[in-house]
Protein backbone atom coordinates (compact mmCIF):
# COMPACT_ATOMS: atom_id res chain seq x y z
CA UNK A 1 0.00 0.00 0.00
CA UNK A 2 2.52 2.55 1.08
CA UNK A 3 4.69 1.61 -1.85
CA UNK A 4 1.80 1.91 -4.23
CA UNK A 5 0.24 5.10 -2.99
CA UNK A 6 3.55 6.78 -2.60
CA UNK A 7 4.44 6.11 -6.16
CA UNK A 8 1.71 8.37 -7.39
CA UNK A 9 2.78 11.73 -6.06
CA UNK A 10 6.42 10.78 -5.90
CA UNK A 11 7.71 11.95 -9.25
CA UNK A 12 5.13 14.69 -9.26
CA UNK A 13 7.24 17.73 -8.78
CA UNK A 14 10.64 16.60 -9.81
CA UNK A 15 11.09 17.32 -13.46
CA UNK A 16 14.10 15.40 -14.57
CA UNK A 17 16.45 14.62 -11.74
CA UNK A 18 15.51 10.98 -11.50
CA UNK A 19 15.82 10.32 -15.22
CA UNK A 20 19.44 10.96 -15.78
CA UNK A 21 20.50 9.15 -12.66
CA UNK A 22 18.28 6.11 -12.99
CA UNK A 23 18.20 5.39 -16.68
CA UNK A 24 21.21 3.20 -17.34
CA UNK A 25 21.91 4.92 -20.63
CA UNK A 26 20.51 3.69 -23.89
CA UNK A 27 20.29 -0.01 -23.26
CA UNK A 28 18.78 -2.54 -25.63
CA UNK A 29 15.69 -0.34 -25.75
CA UNK A 30 17.57 2.87 -26.37
CA UNK A 31 16.89 3.20 -30.07
CA UNK A 32 16.90 6.86 -30.95
CA UNK A 33 14.87 6.76 -34.12
CA UNK A 34 11.91 5.09 -32.45
CA UNK A 35 11.74 7.59 -29.62
CA UNK A 36 10.09 10.44 -31.48
CA UNK A 37 7.59 8.04 -32.97
CA UNK A 38 6.54 7.05 -29.47
CA UNK A 39 6.42 10.51 -27.97
CA UNK A 40 4.95 12.16 -31.06
CA UNK A 41 1.26 12.50 -30.04
CA UNK A 42 2.13 14.01 -26.67
CA UNK A 43 4.83 16.23 -28.12
CA UNK A 44 2.40 17.40 -30.79
CA UNK A 45 -0.20 18.41 -28.21
CA UNK A 46 2.32 20.17 -25.97
CA UNK A 47 3.92 22.08 -28.81
CA UNK A 48 0.82 22.93 -30.84
CA UNK A 49 -1.63 23.63 -28.02
CA UNK A 50 0.61 24.86 -25.22
CA UNK A 51 3.81 26.34 -26.64
CA UNK A 52 2.48 27.90 -29.85
CA UNK A 53 -0.51 29.58 -28.11
CA UNK A 54 1.98 31.40 -25.87
CA UNK A 55 3.64 32.87 -28.95
CA UNK A 56 0.24 33.66 -30.43
CA UNK A 57 -0.57 35.63 -27.28
CA UNK A 58 2.82 37.33 -27.55
CA UNK A 59 2.09 38.34 -31.14
CA UNK A 60 -1.37 39.72 -30.34
CA UNK A 61 0.04 41.63 -27.43
CA UNK A 62 2.23 43.51 -29.92
CA UNK A 63 -0.56 44.26 -32.41
CA UNK A 64 -2.61 47.42 -32.49
CA UNK A 65 -5.84 45.52 -33.05
CA UNK A 66 -7.12 41.99 -33.59
CA UNK A 67 -6.76 40.68 -37.16
CA UNK A 68 -10.50 40.09 -37.48
CA UNK A 69 -11.05 43.82 -37.18
CA UNK A 70 -8.22 44.82 -39.47
CA UNK A 71 -6.39 42.25 -41.61
CA UNK A 72 -3.18 44.28 -41.58
CA UNK A 73 -2.67 45.51 -38.04
CA UNK A 74 0.51 47.34 -37.15
CA UNK A 75 3.00 46.33 -34.48
CA UNK A 76 3.09 48.52 -31.40
CA UNK A 77 4.09 48.63 -27.76
CA UNK A 78 0.98 50.60 -26.84
CA UNK A 79 -0.69 47.63 -25.11
CA UNK A 80 2.25 47.15 -22.79
CA UNK A 81 2.50 50.85 -22.08
CA UNK A 82 -1.17 50.88 -21.21
CA UNK A 83 -0.85 47.87 -18.89
CA UNK A 84 2.16 49.35 -17.13
CA UNK A 85 0.77 52.84 -16.75
CA UNK A 86 -2.88 52.31 -15.86
CA UNK A 87 -2.97 51.90 -12.09
CA UNK A 88 -5.79 49.33 -12.10
CA UNK A 89 -3.54 46.75 -13.71
CA UNK A 90 -0.50 47.36 -11.57
CA UNK A 91 -2.57 47.52 -8.40
CA UNK A 92 -4.38 44.27 -9.11
CA UNK A 93 -1.04 42.67 -9.92
CA UNK A 94 0.57 43.62 -6.59
CA UNK A 95 -2.66 42.76 -4.78
CA UNK A 96 -2.63 39.31 -6.38
CA UNK A 97 0.99 38.81 -5.36
CA UNK A 98 0.08 39.66 -1.76
CA UNK A 99 -2.93 37.34 -1.68
CA UNK A 100 -1.03 34.52 -3.36
CA UNK A 101 1.90 34.82 -0.95
CA UNK A 102 -0.39 34.94 2.10
CA UNK A 103 -2.52 32.01 0.94
CA UNK A 104 0.57 29.95 0.08
CA UNK A 105 2.13 30.60 3.50
CA UNK A 106 -1.06 29.64 5.34
CA UNK A 107 -1.43 26.60 3.12
CA UNK A 108 2.14 25.50 3.85
CA UNK A 109 1.60 25.81 7.60
CA UNK A 110 -1.62 23.77 7.38
CA UNK A 111 -0.15 21.18 5.00
CA UNK A 112 3.18 20.30 6.54
CA UNK A 113 1.80 18.47 9.59
CA UNK A 114 -0.83 16.69 7.50
CA UNK A 115 1.79 15.53 4.99
CA UNK A 116 4.10 14.53 7.85
CA UNK A 117 1.38 12.41 9.38
CA UNK A 118 0.54 10.81 6.03
CA UNK A 119 4.17 9.96 5.40
CA UNK A 120 4.79 8.50 8.86
CA UNK A 121 1.51 6.66 9.32
CA UNK A 122 1.59 4.59 6.14
CA UNK A 123 -1.23 2.35 7.29
CA UNK A 124 -3.77 5.15 7.53
CA UNK A 125 -2.10 7.28 4.90
CA UNK A 126 -3.69 5.47 1.97
CA UNK A 127 -7.19 5.78 3.35
CA UNK A 128 -6.71 9.45 4.21
CA UNK A 129 -5.47 10.11 0.69
CA UNK A 130 -8.60 8.46 -0.70
CA UNK A 131 -10.78 10.66 1.51
CA UNK A 132 -8.79 13.69 0.39
CA UNK A 133 -9.68 12.93 -3.23
CA UNK A 134 -13.44 12.90 -2.63
CA UNK A 135 -13.96 16.68 -2.75
CA UNK A 136 -12.37 16.73 -6.18
CA UNK A 137 -15.38 14.91 -7.52
CA UNK A 138 -17.55 17.93 -6.90
CA UNK A 139 -16.85 20.83 -9.16
CA UNK A 140 -14.59 23.37 -7.50
CA UNK A 141 -17.25 25.92 -8.37
CA UNK A 142 -19.69 24.19 -6.08
CA UNK A 143 -17.17 23.88 -3.28
CA UNK A 144 -16.26 27.54 -3.47
CA UNK A 145 -19.93 28.35 -3.65
CA UNK A 146 -20.49 26.26 -0.57
CA UNK A 147 -18.06 28.49 1.32
CA UNK A 148 -20.22 31.37 0.25
CA UNK A 149 -23.12 29.70 2.08
CA UNK A 150 -20.95 29.03 5.12
CA UNK A 151 -19.26 32.43 5.34
CA UNK A 152 -22.20 34.60 4.22
CA UNK A 153 -23.76 37.24 6.44
CA UNK A 154 -26.72 34.93 7.17
CA UNK A 155 -24.56 31.87 6.73
CA UNK A 156 -23.61 29.12 9.11
CA UNK A 157 -20.66 30.75 10.86
CA UNK A 158 -22.38 34.06 11.43
CA UNK A 159 -25.57 32.36 12.64
CA UNK A 160 -23.63 30.24 15.09
CA UNK A 161 -21.66 33.19 16.39
CA UNK A 162 -24.90 35.13 16.82
CA UNK A 163 -26.72 32.39 18.73
CA UNK A 164 -23.68 32.04 20.94
CA UNK A 165 -23.98 35.74 21.61
CA UNK A 166 -20.46 36.50 20.46
CA UNK A 167 -21.46 39.06 17.85
CA UNK A 168 -24.40 41.36 17.18
CA UNK A 169 -23.73 42.26 13.59
CA UNK A 170 -22.62 39.59 11.13
CA UNK A 171 -18.89 39.53 10.53
CA UNK A 172 -17.96 40.45 6.99
CA UNK A 173 -16.19 37.31 5.78
CA UNK A 174 -17.11 37.56 2.11
CA UNK A 175 -16.40 39.87 -0.81
CA UNK A 176 -13.13 41.00 0.71
CA UNK A 177 -9.58 39.82 1.28
CA UNK A 178 -10.62 37.32 3.95
CA UNK A 179 -13.01 35.61 1.55
CA UNK A 180 -10.48 35.34 -1.26
CA UNK A 181 -7.65 34.05 0.90
CA UNK A 182 -10.03 31.58 2.49
CA UNK A 183 -11.02 30.32 -0.96
CA UNK A 184 -7.43 30.09 -2.18
CA UNK A 185 -6.24 28.23 0.90
CA UNK A 186 -9.13 25.82 0.71
CA UNK A 187 -8.72 25.17 -3.01
CA UNK A 188 -4.97 24.66 -3.15
CA UNK A 189 -3.99 23.06 0.16
CA UNK A 190 -4.46 19.52 -1.25
CA UNK A 191 -2.01 20.45 -4.02
CA UNK A 192 0.47 21.42 -1.32
CA UNK A 193 -0.05 18.25 0.69
CA UNK A 194 0.51 15.74 -2.12
CA UNK A 195 4.04 16.81 -3.16
CA UNK A 196 4.99 17.43 0.48
CA UNK A 197 3.83 13.94 1.32
CA UNK A 198 5.92 12.55 -1.51
CA UNK A 199 9.05 14.36 -0.40
CA UNK A 200 8.55 13.57 3.30
CA UNK A 201 8.03 9.92 2.47
CA UNK A 202 11.57 9.81 1.10
CA UNK A 203 13.20 10.85 4.38
CA UNK A 204 14.64 7.64 5.83
CA UNK A 205 13.13 6.70 9.17
CA UNK A 206 16.58 5.56 10.40
CA UNK A 207 17.93 9.07 10.00
CA UNK A 208 15.27 10.45 12.31
CA UNK A 209 15.89 7.69 14.82
CA UNK A 210 19.63 8.29 14.66
CA UNK A 211 19.11 11.97 15.25
CA UNK A 212 17.06 11.24 18.34
CA UNK A 213 19.43 8.58 19.59
CA UNK A 214 22.15 11.17 19.41
CA UNK A 215 20.17 13.41 21.69
CA UNK A 216 18.18 15.78 19.54
CA UNK A 217 14.56 16.08 20.48
CA UNK A 218 11.66 15.98 18.02
CA UNK A 219 11.71 19.70 17.37
CA UNK A 220 15.46 19.77 16.79
CA UNK A 221 15.19 16.75 14.51
CA UNK A 222 12.41 18.40 12.54
CA UNK A 223 14.35 21.63 12.27
CA UNK A 224 17.80 20.26 11.55
CA UNK A 225 17.12 16.99 9.71
CA UNK A 226 13.65 16.79 8.20
CA UNK A 227 13.25 20.38 7.03
CA UNK A 228 16.64 20.63 5.28
CA UNK A 229 16.12 17.24 3.63
CA UNK A 230 12.70 18.23 2.31
CA UNK A 231 13.56 21.80 1.36
CA UNK A 232 13.70 21.17 -2.37
CA UNK A 233 10.44 19.23 -2.40
CA UNK A 234 8.81 21.85 -0.23
CA UNK A 235 9.90 24.51 -2.68
CA UNK A 236 8.26 22.55 -5.50
CA UNK A 237 5.02 22.42 -3.56
CA UNK A 238 5.24 26.13 -2.80
CA UNK A 239 5.83 26.94 -6.48
CA UNK A 240 2.86 24.84 -7.53
CA UNK A 241 0.49 26.52 -5.07
CA UNK A 242 1.83 30.04 -5.51
CA UNK A 243 1.43 29.86 -9.28
CA UNK A 244 -1.98 28.26 -8.97
CA UNK A 245 -3.12 31.11 -6.68
CA UNK A 246 -1.88 33.57 -9.29
CA UNK A 247 -3.92 31.90 -11.99
CA UNK A 248 -7.03 31.34 -9.90
CA UNK A 249 -10.23 32.92 -11.11
CA UNK A 250 -13.03 31.29 -9.16
CA UNK A 251 -12.12 32.35 -5.62
CA UNK A 252 -11.56 35.88 -6.80
CA UNK A 253 -14.80 35.94 -8.78
CA UNK A 254 -17.05 34.33 -6.20
CA UNK A 255 -15.61 35.26 -2.82
CA UNK A 256 -13.97 38.56 -3.67
CA UNK A 257 -15.49 41.98 -4.09
CA UNK A 258 -15.09 45.22 -5.98
CA UNK A 259 -12.00 46.25 -4.02
CA UNK A 260 -10.20 42.93 -4.29
CA UNK A 261 -9.82 42.53 -8.03
CA UNK A 262 -7.13 39.99 -8.87
CA UNK A 263 -5.05 40.01 -12.03
CA UNK A 264 -6.44 36.69 -13.23
CA UNK A 265 -9.95 38.08 -12.90
CA UNK A 266 -8.94 41.11 -14.92
CA UNK A 267 -7.65 38.86 -17.72
CA UNK A 268 -10.72 36.64 -17.47
CA UNK A 269 -13.14 39.56 -17.69
CA UNK A 270 -11.18 41.08 -20.57
CA UNK A 271 -11.58 38.00 -22.70
CA UNK A 272 -15.04 37.14 -21.50
CA UNK A 273 -16.53 40.56 -22.09
CA UNK A 274 -14.91 40.92 -25.47
CA UNK A 275 -13.00 43.99 -24.34
CA UNK A 276 -9.61 44.83 -25.83
CA UNK A 277 -8.03 41.44 -26.50
CA UNK A 278 -4.69 42.96 -27.40
CA UNK A 279 -4.38 44.56 -23.99
CA UNK A 280 -5.58 41.27 -22.53
CA UNK A 281 -2.80 39.48 -24.41
CA UNK A 282 -0.20 41.92 -23.10
CA UNK A 283 -1.47 41.27 -19.57
CA UNK A 284 -1.29 37.51 -20.15
CA UNK A 285 2.25 37.72 -21.45
CA UNK A 286 3.37 39.79 -18.47
CA UNK A 287 1.71 37.42 -16.00
CA UNK A 288 3.15 34.40 -17.77
CA UNK A 289 6.62 35.95 -17.70
CA UNK A 290 6.26 36.79 -14.03
CA UNK A 291 5.18 33.22 -13.26
CA UNK A 292 8.15 31.75 -15.14
CA UNK A 293 10.54 34.09 -13.35
CA UNK A 294 9.01 33.25 -9.98
CA UNK A 295 9.22 29.51 -10.65
CA UNK A 296 12.83 29.82 -11.81
CA UNK A 297 13.91 31.88 -8.79
CA UNK A 298 12.19 29.60 -6.29
CA UNK A 299 13.56 26.47 -7.94
CA UNK A 300 17.02 27.99 -7.81
CA UNK A 301 16.59 28.84 -4.14
CA UNK A 302 15.46 25.30 -3.40
CA UNK A 303 18.40 23.79 -5.26
CA UNK A 304 21.02 26.03 -3.75
CA UNK A 305 20.08 25.28 -0.19
CA UNK A 306 19.92 21.60 -0.94
CA UNK A 307 23.59 21.48 -1.89
CA UNK A 308 24.85 23.26 1.22
Amino acid sequence: MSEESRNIPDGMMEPSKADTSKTPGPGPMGRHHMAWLVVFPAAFLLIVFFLIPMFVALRYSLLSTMPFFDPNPSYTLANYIRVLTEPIYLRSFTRTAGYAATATTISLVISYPVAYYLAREARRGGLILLVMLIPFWTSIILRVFSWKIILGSSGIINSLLKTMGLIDLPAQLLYNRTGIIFGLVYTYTPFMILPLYATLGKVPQELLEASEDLGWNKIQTLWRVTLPLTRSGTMSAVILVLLACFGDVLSAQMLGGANTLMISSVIFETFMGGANWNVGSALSVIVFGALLLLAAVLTWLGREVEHV
Partner: protein
Amino acid sequence: MSDTLRRSWLRSGWGQKIFGLYVAAYLGYLLLPLVVLVLYAFNTSGYLTWPIKGFTLRWFADAFSDSRLLKATGNSIFIGLVTTFFSTFFGMLLAYGLVRFQFYGKRFLETLNILAIITYGVVSAVSVLLWFHTLGIAGGIWPTIIGHTTFIMPFAVLVIRDRLLNFDPGVEEAAMDLGATPLRTFRDITLPLIMPALLASGLFCFTISLGEFLLAFFLIGNELTLPVYLYGLMRFTFTPAVNAAAVMIVSFPILAVIIAAIFFRREVRSLY
Protein backbone atom coordinates in the same frame (compact mmCIF):
# COMPACT_ATOMS: atom_id res chain seq x y z
CA MET B 1 13.49 5.28 29.77
CA SER B 2 13.55 8.81 28.43
CA ASP B 3 14.88 7.50 25.14
CA THR B 4 11.97 5.16 24.63
CA LEU B 5 9.61 7.92 25.63
CA ARG B 6 11.10 10.26 23.13
CA ARG B 7 11.12 7.78 20.31
CA SER B 8 7.51 6.92 20.82
CA TRP B 9 6.39 10.52 20.92
CA LEU B 10 4.61 10.17 17.61
CA ARG B 11 3.86 6.47 17.73
CA SER B 12 1.72 6.62 20.83
CA GLY B 13 0.48 8.93 23.51
CA TRP B 14 -0.14 12.63 23.28
CA GLY B 15 1.87 13.39 20.20
CA GLN B 16 0.04 10.94 18.05
CA LYS B 17 -3.33 11.87 19.46
CA ILE B 18 -2.84 15.56 18.76
CA PHE B 19 -1.49 14.75 15.32
CA GLY B 20 -4.41 12.46 14.55
CA LEU B 21 -6.93 15.04 15.75
CA TYR B 22 -5.27 17.68 13.63
CA VAL B 23 -5.46 15.55 10.49
CA ALA B 24 -9.07 14.65 11.27
CA ALA B 25 -9.84 18.35 11.66
CA TYR B 26 -8.22 19.03 8.31
CA LEU B 27 -10.31 16.34 6.63
CA GLY B 28 -13.40 17.85 8.26
CA TYR B 29 -12.50 21.24 6.85
CA LEU B 30 -11.91 19.69 3.44
CA LEU B 31 -15.25 17.90 3.44
CA LEU B 32 -17.35 20.60 5.13
CA PRO B 33 -18.42 22.24 1.85
CA LEU B 34 -19.67 18.89 0.59
CA VAL B 35 -21.69 18.32 3.75
CA VAL B 36 -23.22 21.75 3.36
CA LEU B 37 -24.09 21.05 -0.28
CA VAL B 38 -25.81 17.83 0.73
CA LEU B 39 -27.74 19.52 3.54
CA TYR B 40 -29.09 22.20 1.25
CA ALA B 41 -29.96 19.69 -1.46
CA PHE B 42 -32.62 18.29 0.90
CA ASN B 43 -33.69 21.62 2.41
CA THR B 44 -37.25 22.80 1.77
CA SER B 45 -36.33 26.48 1.55
CA GLY B 46 -34.96 27.78 -1.71
CA TYR B 47 -32.82 30.28 0.19
CA LEU B 48 -29.37 29.28 1.26
CA THR B 49 -29.59 30.59 4.81
CA TRP B 50 -28.97 28.93 8.14
CA PRO B 51 -30.67 27.14 9.83
CA ILE B 52 -32.05 24.71 7.27
CA LYS B 53 -35.83 24.30 7.38
CA GLY B 54 -37.08 20.83 6.48
CA PHE B 55 -36.66 17.79 4.30
CA THR B 56 -37.68 17.57 0.65
CA LEU B 57 -36.77 15.69 -2.50
CA ARG B 58 -38.15 18.46 -4.66
CA TRP B 59 -34.75 19.68 -5.83
CA PHE B 60 -33.87 16.27 -7.15
CA ALA B 61 -37.03 16.28 -9.26
CA ASP B 62 -36.11 19.78 -10.42
CA ALA B 63 -32.63 18.65 -11.34
CA PHE B 64 -34.00 15.86 -13.50
CA SER B 65 -36.34 18.22 -15.32
CA ASP B 66 -33.62 20.79 -16.00
CA SER B 67 -32.64 19.80 -19.52
CA ARG B 68 -29.67 22.18 -19.66
CA LEU B 69 -28.29 20.76 -16.44
CA LEU B 70 -28.62 17.22 -17.80
CA LYS B 71 -27.04 18.22 -21.10
CA ALA B 72 -24.16 19.93 -19.33
CA THR B 73 -23.60 16.90 -17.10
CA GLY B 74 -23.66 14.58 -20.11
CA ASN B 75 -21.17 16.77 -21.97
CA SER B 76 -18.86 16.89 -18.97
CA ILE B 77 -18.87 13.14 -18.58
CA PHE B 78 -18.25 12.64 -22.31
CA ILE B 79 -15.42 15.18 -22.36
CA GLY B 80 -14.02 13.60 -19.20
CA LEU B 81 -14.00 10.09 -20.64
CA VAL B 82 -12.44 11.04 -23.97
CA THR B 83 -9.89 13.28 -22.24
CA THR B 84 -9.03 10.50 -19.82
CA PHE B 85 -8.45 8.05 -22.63
CA PHE B 86 -6.18 10.31 -24.68
CA SER B 87 -4.37 11.82 -21.70
CA THR B 88 -3.52 8.42 -20.28
CA PHE B 89 -2.65 6.87 -23.64
CA PHE B 90 -0.48 9.73 -24.93
CA GLY B 91 0.86 10.33 -21.44
CA MET B 92 1.93 6.72 -21.22
CA LEU B 93 3.73 6.97 -24.55
CA LEU B 94 5.55 10.14 -23.55
CA ALA B 95 6.46 8.73 -20.15
CA TYR B 96 7.78 5.56 -21.77
CA GLY B 97 9.79 7.54 -24.29
CA LEU B 98 11.27 9.78 -21.63
CA VAL B 99 12.28 6.90 -19.38
CA ARG B 100 13.49 4.31 -21.87
CA PHE B 101 15.02 6.34 -24.69
CA GLN B 102 17.72 8.92 -25.09
CA PHE B 103 16.80 11.28 -27.87
CA TYR B 104 17.27 14.78 -29.14
CA GLY B 105 14.75 17.15 -27.56
CA LYS B 106 14.13 15.03 -24.48
CA ARG B 107 14.94 17.79 -21.98
CA PHE B 108 12.79 20.15 -24.01
CA LEU B 109 9.76 17.87 -23.77
CA GLU B 110 10.32 17.30 -20.06
CA THR B 111 10.47 21.03 -19.43
CA LEU B 112 7.38 21.65 -21.56
CA ASN B 113 5.51 18.98 -19.61
CA ILE B 114 6.34 20.55 -16.24
CA LEU B 115 5.65 24.07 -17.49
CA ALA B 116 2.21 23.05 -18.73
CA ILE B 117 1.39 21.92 -15.21
CA ILE B 118 2.76 24.77 -13.17
CA THR B 119 1.61 27.58 -15.45
CA TYR B 120 -1.88 26.19 -15.97
CA GLY B 121 -4.42 28.89 -15.29
CA VAL B 122 -6.22 31.74 -16.90
CA VAL B 123 -3.20 32.65 -19.05
CA SER B 124 -3.00 29.24 -20.73
CA ALA B 125 -6.74 29.19 -21.24
CA VAL B 126 -6.92 32.55 -23.02
CA SER B 127 -3.83 31.73 -25.08
CA VAL B 128 -5.47 28.58 -26.40
CA LEU B 129 -8.59 30.63 -27.09
CA LEU B 130 -6.54 33.12 -29.12
CA TRP B 131 -4.88 30.29 -31.04
CA PHE B 132 -8.19 28.66 -31.91
CA HIS B 133 -9.49 32.02 -33.04
CA THR B 134 -6.47 32.41 -35.28
CA LEU B 135 -7.01 28.97 -36.77
CA GLY B 136 -10.69 29.73 -37.26
CA ILE B 137 -11.80 26.87 -35.01
CA ALA B 138 -15.09 27.62 -33.31
CA GLY B 139 -15.69 26.54 -29.75
CA GLY B 140 -17.33 23.23 -28.97
CA ILE B 141 -16.93 19.88 -27.32
CA TRP B 142 -13.92 18.71 -29.34
CA PRO B 143 -11.88 21.90 -28.89
CA THR B 144 -12.53 21.52 -25.17
CA ILE B 145 -11.31 17.94 -25.32
CA ILE B 146 -8.13 19.09 -27.08
CA GLY B 147 -7.57 21.77 -24.44
CA HIS B 148 -8.22 19.36 -21.59
CA THR B 149 -6.01 16.64 -23.02
CA THR B 150 -3.12 19.07 -23.56
CA PHE B 151 -3.13 20.33 -19.99
CA ILE B 152 -4.21 17.16 -18.16
CA MET B 153 -1.90 14.73 -19.98
CA PRO B 154 1.21 16.17 -18.25
CA PHE B 155 -0.13 14.89 -14.91
CA ALA B 156 -0.56 11.42 -16.42
CA VAL B 157 3.03 11.58 -17.66
CA LEU B 158 4.35 12.24 -14.15
CA VAL B 159 2.31 9.48 -12.56
CA ILE B 160 3.22 6.87 -15.17
CA ARG B 161 6.85 7.94 -15.47
CA ASP B 162 7.30 7.45 -11.76
CA ARG B 163 6.05 3.90 -12.01
CA LEU B 164 8.32 3.18 -14.98
CA LEU B 165 11.31 4.45 -13.02
CA ASN B 166 10.45 2.23 -10.10
CA PHE B 167 10.65 -1.20 -11.58
CA ASP B 168 13.70 -3.08 -12.77
CA PRO B 169 14.23 -2.55 -16.53
CA GLY B 170 16.03 -5.88 -16.40
CA VAL B 171 12.72 -7.72 -16.83
CA GLU B 172 12.17 -5.91 -20.12
CA GLU B 173 15.69 -6.68 -21.24
CA ALA B 174 15.22 -10.32 -20.30
CA ALA B 175 12.08 -10.55 -22.44
CA MET B 176 13.90 -8.99 -25.38
CA ASP B 177 16.91 -11.25 -24.91
CA LEU B 178 14.54 -14.19 -25.08
CA GLY B 179 13.35 -13.00 -28.44
CA ALA B 180 10.28 -10.89 -27.75
CA THR B 181 9.77 -7.92 -30.05
CA PRO B 182 9.72 -4.46 -28.42
CA LEU B 183 5.97 -4.30 -28.96
CA ARG B 184 5.41 -7.71 -27.42
CA THR B 185 7.68 -6.83 -24.51
CA PHE B 186 5.69 -3.72 -23.90
CA ARG B 187 2.37 -5.53 -24.08
CA ASP B 188 3.27 -8.55 -21.97
CA ILE B 189 5.81 -7.14 -19.51
CA THR B 190 5.66 -3.38 -19.24
CA LEU B 191 1.93 -2.83 -19.54
CA PRO B 192 0.92 -5.17 -16.68
CA LEU B 193 3.62 -3.63 -14.50
CA ILE B 194 2.45 -0.07 -15.04
CA MET B 195 -1.25 -0.91 -14.91
CA PRO B 196 -1.75 0.48 -11.37
CA ALA B 197 -0.26 3.78 -12.51
CA LEU B 198 -2.47 3.81 -15.60
CA LEU B 199 -5.55 3.31 -13.45
CA ALA B 200 -4.48 5.96 -10.97
CA SER B 201 -3.73 8.35 -13.78
CA GLY B 202 -7.05 7.61 -15.44
CA LEU B 203 -8.96 8.34 -12.26
CA PHE B 204 -6.95 11.50 -11.76
CA CYS B 205 -7.46 12.75 -15.33
CA PHE B 206 -11.19 12.12 -15.25
CA THR B 207 -11.49 13.97 -11.97
CA ILE B 208 -9.62 17.02 -13.22
CA SER B 209 -11.49 17.14 -16.51
CA LEU B 210 -14.88 16.87 -14.83
CA GLY B 211 -14.25 19.90 -12.64
CA GLU B 212 -12.14 21.97 -15.03
CA PHE B 213 -13.61 25.40 -15.57
CA LEU B 214 -11.24 27.85 -17.28
CA LEU B 215 -10.39 25.98 -20.49
CA ALA B 216 -13.95 24.74 -20.81
CA PHE B 217 -15.30 28.25 -20.33
CA PHE B 218 -13.26 29.65 -23.20
CA LEU B 219 -13.35 26.67 -25.54
CA ILE B 220 -16.85 25.25 -25.19
CA GLY B 221 -18.52 27.82 -27.47
CA ASN B 222 -22.30 27.51 -27.46
CA GLU B 223 -22.26 24.18 -25.68
CA LEU B 224 -22.11 23.69 -21.91
CA THR B 225 -20.10 21.73 -19.43
CA LEU B 226 -21.23 21.30 -15.87
CA PRO B 227 -18.78 23.82 -14.35
CA VAL B 228 -19.60 26.37 -17.08
CA TYR B 229 -23.31 25.90 -16.49
CA LEU B 230 -22.89 26.19 -12.74
CA TYR B 231 -20.82 29.32 -13.13
CA GLY B 232 -23.62 30.90 -15.14
CA LEU B 233 -26.20 29.88 -12.56
CA MET B 234 -24.24 31.27 -9.67
CA ARG B 235 -24.03 34.63 -11.27
CA PHE B 236 -27.77 34.80 -11.83
CA THR B 237 -30.42 32.39 -10.58
CA PHE B 238 -29.32 29.69 -8.24
CA THR B 239 -31.64 27.00 -6.90
CA PRO B 240 -30.79 24.01 -4.72
CA ALA B 241 -31.48 21.82 -7.79
CA VAL B 242 -27.80 22.37 -8.47
CA ASN B 243 -26.99 20.99 -5.03
CA ALA B 244 -29.13 17.97 -5.80
CA ALA B 245 -27.24 17.37 -9.04
CA ALA B 246 -23.95 17.77 -7.18
CA VAL B 247 -25.03 15.25 -4.56
CA MET B 248 -25.83 12.72 -7.25
CA ILE B 249 -22.53 13.32 -9.02
CA VAL B 250 -20.45 13.10 -5.88
CA SER B 251 -22.18 10.01 -4.53
CA PHE B 252 -21.00 7.81 -7.42
CA PRO B 253 -17.29 8.23 -6.75
CA ILE B 254 -17.80 7.93 -3.00
CA LEU B 255 -19.52 4.61 -3.60
CA ALA B 256 -16.72 3.65 -5.96
CA VAL B 257 -14.11 4.50 -3.33
CA ILE B 258 -15.94 2.47 -0.69
CA ILE B 259 -16.28 -0.48 -3.04
CA ALA B 260 -12.63 -0.19 -4.04
CA ALA B 261 -11.61 -0.04 -0.38
CA ILE B 262 -13.54 -3.21 0.38
CA PHE B 263 -12.48 -4.92 -2.81
CA PHE B 264 -8.77 -4.14 -2.49
CA ARG B 265 -8.55 -4.57 1.25
CA ARG B 266 -6.90 -7.94 1.05
CA GLU B 267 -4.28 -6.68 -1.35
CA VAL B 268 -3.67 -3.66 0.81
CA ARG B 269 -3.18 -5.85 3.87
CA SER B 270 -0.91 -8.29 2.10
CA LEU B 271 1.55 -5.49 1.48
CA TYR B 272 2.34 -5.11 5.16
